């Protein structure tokens, strides 16, 4: 099936966006959210490294995980299997449905 008929394809392909507007939106998304910042301040370096190691293991084994993700007004719980890792974007994709920025992950359970 054509990309135009899948997911957000119809709107992705017809969106009229100035390059500069797009850049401004991307820059805004990449700034830490105030709520996320508050939530993540409590993470110490050891906890951060532990999460990174466990994420790496879950990615290589394809095992299901449960993430607590900083959000506003409430943190979100997302469950699934890591299906993609975007090193440049510093994010992971769960079940080919949801992108999660690594910096917003507060906790992880297997």
């Amino acid at each position, binding site marked *: 099936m054509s990309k135009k008929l899948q997911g957000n394809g*119809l709107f992705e392909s017809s969106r009229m966006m100035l390059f*500069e507007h797009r850049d401004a939106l991307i820059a805004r998304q990449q700034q830490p959210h105030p709520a996320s910042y508050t939530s993540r301040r409590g993470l110490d370096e050891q906890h951060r490294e532990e999460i990174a190691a466990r994420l790496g293991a879950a990615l290589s084994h394809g095992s299901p995980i449960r993430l607590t993700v900083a959000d506003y007004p409430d943190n979100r719980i997302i469950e699934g299997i890591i299906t993609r890792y975007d090193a*440049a974007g510093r994010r992971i994709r769960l079940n080919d449905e949801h992108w999660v920025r690594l910096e917003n992950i507060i906790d992880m359970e297997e």
Partner: protein
Amino acid sequence: MSAILRPFVRRDKRTVLLADCQSFYASVEKAANPSIRNKPVVVAGDPKRRSGIILAACPTAKAYGVTTAESLRDAVKKCPELVVALPRMRHYIDMSIHITRILESYTELVEPFSIDEQFADVTNSLARFGCNPIELATHIQMRILQETGIYTRIGIAENKILAKIACDIFAKKDPEGGLHEITRDNISDLWSHELNKMFGIGTRTMMHLHKIGIRNIGDLAATPLETLKRKMRVLLGRNADIWSEVLWRTANGIDDSPVNPDAFDTQKGIGRQTTLPVDYHTAEDIHVVLLELSALICERSRKKHYQGAVVSVGVQGADFDKPTGFSRQMKLDVPTNLTREVYAAAKQVFEKHWNGLPVRKVWVQLGSLISDEAVQLTLFDDRHRHLVLEQTMDGIRDAYGPTAVFFGSSASRSAQLTNIARKIGGHLK
């Protein structure tokens, strides 16, 4: 196992809004300058040149017959007291993002569709705010007006395509509230409208549909999909099936596209475009602009530490009603952020697809981005030397301005670098 989002509850039927800013650029100017609030105001490409075109006209100016995209000369003939404002594209982008923020205070699911249109999925917000879709849309509309001075028209429906149609065909024509909700009970109101009122149908597509006996949106919705595909194949060939299904789904209000708040969370491409002051007729002149755009996007890519593997190029003629030109891309053997490599690809795409007709708008984009940390070495080439040279040029431009150093062709008659540096989307920053 499927991904589960909590505490949000999935519902069978969504409520999606499309908020459209009325005469956006002109409204921003009126909001910024109360002394012109009740006057006919336009934002025009270049007021010094009477041939400049109208980018936005406020409703007061439109009442004089002034229309978007006509020449300033013609507009002033219709309305001698017209107030003409210079575009301020950076400010318009800031205002658009301000409206994004307002929408995000109601729902996290907000997706900008253009500088003056944004989708919001408020399914879960309705329960939180304890109101119906029209009440919530009214609140949003009033808040945007209070905070920005900009009047929005809002289409409401169970999906994005119907919300867009509700806004374009009904809410924009509603002199009272500027709101309209399409439901399964009133969707038939849509069907008597002409085809070119529907999202995605331009003059050319409407002519094709007329040829096969489809006169309005209702005809399109009622035509069995397979019949539509078969008839359109005769006119459009192999592309007909996909296009027919898009049109058929739109006319029937079938759409499961999500409102994607992550649509802009990563850089998918880095591009620039420019609108030329006059039509360019020769390949040599257009090559100069392609090189300038390639240099600008490569500079930006280097600063963001990206390199790209796909170069997209497009050109367009001056008459938007009779579109000419193309938009095509090519994949590179090696990802790059070097101007000469991007330019070589852009030139190749242009030479392959340009049909020789006059060009007024040109764009170049570098896509399929990856980190520039891993640089691929190629044999018999000195990419590192070119990278150092371009990084040195970047440093000079950072210190002394965007036109402090440039390629020699930018000193030629057809060069646009100075112009591009002052503009966004072909209009003044």
